[in-house]
């Protein structure tokens, strides 16, 4: 069976781009999460037609397939289950066309997020979503997960930056969702495809919106003796009618870990620090900085450091973005969570997170997108200590529950994947989930495109297949 499958895939690609050997199968059975599955064969197509051909072979053999970008996902979205075929898009790295005037580009899904911005820098534009993994994550992965990043506070997440998608549907048909024009007829199929974690098909070309670079930037580091004061500052800034480009928060343990790692002069004695970045035209910028300093003062800020030049700005951001590397100095393993709570609930939920960690005898660091309430509690541990993993998972479950109870959601940017699939019931009723499954079944009635993700207890698509729209009732 597998031999025939491999032969058929070799027929549509070639021998060097179809891998059924043990080392490839081992490499591709996991992503950056700590979950793993199994794959029978890994394909490396280079064109839309080749992706479609692989999908058709999968259908002919009745085998499921999983699209994969850089494999940096943290929720197990790209983990192949039950010997699915892995279709890796890492060889599709071309920028197909650029419209300089209207600031948009068609790119292939394997283009890396930061590479895209770097390649187009001479046009004075960048791709706004900036996940911390932006050096290695791909645009296709960003589409699958509707990725965010620090600068999505003002600019919005990936869905706001994707105008159209060329996709291979789960049956192998190639079509375009959305379009070069702003109001294509019909349902917003582009909108539902973004963030669908590879379950509605495979994007093979993406029309991205490019964002004008900022004429001026001010980056500030503010530190507080109490986490609650930092969190209150965030709420007050927004309530005052400002939407800074980014507002990030680091708590004390994180500040200490990062400082030991990069020596940026971070305030290691403070309970929390905020990294606030405002961008725009000069007068607006100065007015915002002045007002933010005033607001921070009302919330007992200990000190404010304003980056004096690009080098200092880069250093402050390096502190934020290298948090995960710094953690290795504390413990060998970490588990990164991703939930969202209303901004006003940040102090309460953070306190609950500390309490949950204490109860499970774990250390927790918090480094997160405070501006949009997107928490990233980082549980650090040593997996070699027996029983630790169980405590980590239990603490994680409690953190998710606490976030939802506070009026928040399961995930802000990492996605549901396998990791949170069975938590979906915390947020959605069976009726809500059936509606999501209805969408999935409309795209993929055979359930071949990345099955087993996102939706818990997957209802089959068959039960409603029998019901037909009466002829002429609608279309």
């Amino acid at each position, binding site marked *: 069976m597998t031999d025939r499958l491999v032969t058929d895939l070799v027929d549509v690609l070639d021998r060097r781009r179809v891998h059924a050997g043990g080392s490839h199968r081992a490499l591709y059975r996991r992503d950056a999460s700590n979950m793993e599955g199994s794959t029978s064969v890994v394909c490396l197509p280079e064109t839309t037609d080749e992706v479609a051909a692989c999908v058709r072979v999968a259908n002919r053999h009745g085998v499921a397939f999983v699209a994969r970008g850089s494999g940096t996902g943290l929720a197990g979205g790209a983990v192949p289950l039950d010997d699915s075929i892995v279709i890796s898009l890492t060889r599709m790295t071309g920028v197909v066309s650029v419209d300089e005037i*209207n600031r948009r580009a068609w790119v292939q899904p394997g283009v890396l997020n930061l590479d895209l911005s770097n390649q187009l820098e001479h046009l004075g534009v960048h791709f706004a979503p900036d996940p911390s993994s932006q050096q290695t994550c791909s645009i296709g992965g960003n589409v699958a997960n509707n990725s965010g990043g620090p600068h999505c506070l003002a600019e919005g997440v990936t869905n706001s930056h994707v105008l159209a998608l060329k996709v291979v549907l789960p049956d192998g048909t190639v079509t375009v969702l959305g379009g070069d024009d702003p109001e294509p007829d019909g349902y917003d199929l582009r909108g539902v495809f973004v963030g669908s974690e590879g379950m509605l098909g495979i994007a093979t070309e993406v029309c991205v919106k490019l964002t004008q670079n900022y004429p001026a930037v001010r980056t500030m580091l503010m530190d507080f003796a109490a986490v609650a004061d930092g969190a209150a500052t965030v709420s007050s800034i927004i309530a005052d009618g400002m939407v800074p480009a980014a507002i990030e928060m680091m708590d004390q343990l994180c500040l200490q870990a990062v400082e030991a790692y990069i020596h940026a002069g971070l305030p290691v004695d403070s309970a929390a620090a905020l990294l606030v970045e405002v961008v725009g035209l000069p007068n607006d910028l100065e007015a915002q900085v002045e007002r933010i300093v005033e607001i921070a003062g009302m919330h007992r800020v200990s000190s404010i450091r304003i980056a004096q030049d690009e080098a200092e700005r880069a250093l402050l951001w390096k502190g934020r973005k290298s948090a995960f590397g710094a953690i290795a100095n504390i413990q060998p393993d970490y588990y990164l969570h991703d939930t969202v709570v209303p901004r006003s609930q940040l102090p309460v939920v953070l306190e609950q997170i500390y309490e949950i960690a204490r109860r499970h005898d774990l250390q927790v660091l918090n480094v997160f997108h405070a501006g949009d309430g997107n928490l990233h509690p980082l549980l650090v541990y040593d997996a070699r200590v027996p029983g630790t993993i169980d405590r980590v998972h239990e603490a994680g479950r409690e953190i998710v529950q606490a976030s939802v109870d506070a009026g928040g959601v399961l995930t802000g940017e990492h996605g549901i994947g396998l990791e949170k699939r069975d938590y979906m019931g915390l947020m959605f009723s069976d009726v809500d989930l059936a509606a999501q499954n209805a969408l999935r079944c409309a795209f993929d009635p055979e359930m071949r495109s990345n099955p087993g993700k996102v939706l818990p207890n997957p209802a089959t698509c068959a039960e409603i297949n029998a019901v037909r729209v009466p002829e002429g009732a609608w279309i």
Partner: protein
Amino acid sequence: MDLSEFAEEIGSDDPVTIAGLGTRGGPVDDVRPVMAPGGVEWFRPDEMIVCCGAGTPLDELEDALAIHRQTVAIPPFGTVGGALAVGRSGIRRLGYGPVRDTVLQVRYVDASGRIVKAGGPTVKNVSGFDLCRLLVGSHGTLGFVGDVILRTRPMGRFEQWFTTTTDPDVLLRQLYRPTSILWDGERSWVLLEGHPDDVRAQAAALGLVAGDLPPALPKGGRWSVDPAQLRSLVGTGRFVAEIGVGIVHHEQPAPARPRDPAIVELHRRIKARFDPTGRLNPGVDVLAAP
């Protein structure tokens, strides 16, 4: 907001149509109409989110938001539900983004009369499939929206319309984040927002003249065009085009566009899954919606 009465009214059997204020088309003729609940349920200015019934008139919503100097990127008039069902943006789309990006959570009543929640109450959320986006622009063919949570935005500190005969591509290239650029083939109207000194400096740098409000928009048709192709409109009749966006307000009806059979088939399957008997807004074809 209690949606159970609305759900009960929709029921699960007979054909039913949704009515708002009739601003954007109105209900289907000769079908039993229902109206969504109205009213602002709550507004959290420090979260920049608001919850309201789909039947809420947009001017009522804007009045509530204005108290805290906030607004929402949905074009004026009619009801919130009507604007979302049609999904069309206003002339500030260049700066504010499309209508679909404002919707965070939707609770709608499905074809079986059940209340379904899609999305979530936070600005950032990737929990599950984004059914909110499926509903925006769906013309009430998949479910009737009962209430929504919307993302608000701060009002501009200062705004000013300008006119110019400078090439619109130059305007788009050189201005920093204009809210709107309209072009009639000869002249452009530019809306700038922000700090008054920044607005004046940007205008001065390009020789924009303050004053005239944008022209009346031709009402013959709303065309959706690749913004790179807007120049080809010259000579097709009177129009006002949204530069950088591609919406064209034209005196002529929009030309018919080719349909990809794969897209038609996806629409058929989605409708079949969400409304198997075709009872919601019967006869409405979203692929041919005016």
